[in-house]
């Protein structure tokens, strides 16, 4: 394969110039973000470089089992990361993991089945990474909102349970709000795409020399794919995690409630 671009570490290093400006601003305004910026820069460098080698290996091996293992690994790491953002949900890891695996399998499976992409590592690996990443963010937002809503609305939930409602009936209004908060950011960015910002894939393709309309078509496929996957992941994570707030006897677990004695 002929490289479309010739980028070395010198160019990457030059891009750090802007990061230096951000660090200076942080120091000047005493924002105390310079440590976080340094960690973000270091982690992104190490993680992306490592994943670059892994992807190169997967491409060379051309084995679909390796692709599945790689995407499953991303889902485990994604669920682990997202769990920390949903700290107020009693059981978050398993719902997140199932959500990410399901979103990845359903989305990629559909795209391959419809013949949009062929089942080759060079398509499935980057697309899988995007699906898992976006699904993770959406599911984490939805679960975090779910935890906050249950904690903030425990009086309403318990009052509803006291009227003979099941746990599912008592939490239903909150589920709607949590699901919306997970999916709305991507819907909004999809609405404004091309007007307020250019999405990454399209920019990448244009920079790499692709024809604009080809870049647009691929970007549209990706956007629609992501809309589907974040909805699947948010719904799955929220529906599975909501059970953990209740006991089998339709009691709100204490972790979410702060009640008088």
């Amino acid at each position: 394969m002929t490289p479309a671009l010739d980028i070395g570490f010198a160019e990457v290093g030059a891009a750090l110039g802007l990061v230096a400006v951000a660090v200076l601003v942080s120091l000047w305004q005493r924002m105390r973000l310079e440590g976080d910026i340094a960690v973000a820069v270091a982690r992104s460098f190490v993680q992306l470089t490592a994943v670059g080698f892994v992807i190169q290996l997967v491409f060379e091996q051309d084995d679909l089992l390796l692709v599945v293992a790689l995407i499953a690994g991303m889902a485990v790491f994604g669920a682990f990361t997202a769990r920390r953002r949903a700290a107020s949900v009693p059981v978050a890891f398993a719902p997140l993991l199932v959500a990410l695996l399901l979103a990845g399998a359903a989305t990629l499976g559909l795209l391959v089945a419809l013949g949009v992409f062929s089942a080759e590592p060079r398509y499935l690996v980057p697309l899988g990474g995007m699906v898992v990443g976006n699904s993770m963010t959406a599911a984490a937002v939805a679960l975090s909102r779910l935890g906050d809503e249950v904690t903030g609305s425990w009086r309403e939930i318990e009052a509803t349970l006291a009227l003979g409602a099941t746990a599912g009936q008592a939490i239903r209004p909150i589920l709607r709000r949590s699901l919306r908060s997970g999916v709305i950011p991507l819907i909004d960015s999809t609405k404004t795409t091309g007007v307020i910002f250019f999405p990454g894939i399209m920019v990448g393709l244009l920079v790499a020399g692709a024809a604009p309309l080809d870049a647009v078509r691929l970007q549209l496929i990706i956007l629609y794919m992501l809309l589907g996957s974040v909805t699947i992941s948010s719904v799955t994570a929220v529906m599975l995690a909501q059970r953990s707030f209740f006991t089998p006897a339709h009691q709100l677990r204490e972790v979410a409630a702060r009640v008088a004695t």
Partner: protein
Amino acid sequence: MLFELERVRASRGGAEVLHDVSLALPEGSTCIAGSSGSGKSTLLRLLNRLAEPDSGRVAYRGRELASLEVLALRREVALVPQLPALLPGTIADNVGFGPGLVDRDVEVAVLLDLAGLPTAFAERDADRLSTGEQQRVMLARALALEPRVLLLDEPTSALDERTRDHVEETLKELRRRLGISLVLVTHDFAQAERLAERVVRLEGGRAIVADPGPERTSVSTPPAVR
């Protein structure tokens, strides 16, 4: 016996708030009086299984609570929480919510009247009521379940004196007209004396004394206290 508690221990927020409580509550009206933090709200929540004891036995009419179908129990033993927590929608939506879960219609006007509210309130938005009015809607909502027992958690704590007197009159009237048993939690010992046929004092998570109240009835056998 309406409720029996045997050597019940229960925790809230990781700390034990009921320590080895044994208690028998007969039919009629009982007040559980105690200061803040004495465990009285937790005790009330045990009675319709909104909470579970750490150990010990809780029975309703001779049957262990855990052996009863929990949703049916909560319709029969309805709890009115301390602070109003109404659902979005109208008063009628709120009053009809519980019966709606089992596909039963209710006469909202009758229930509002029972709770001491004007029947014209039915179509009002729930969030446009005073605290006292909301508390009465909570009462009407619980009555809509046609319960045999009402559990009331500090039903007048958020109300001024005049509204409090009205709610107290309503509760006495309900007891007279419908024969519903009441278990009422309060920090106000004077209110306990005014409302209940018997008073159980709860202090520091222990039921320490039971006073027969002023209105002795034929069922007011003094409850067994540890």
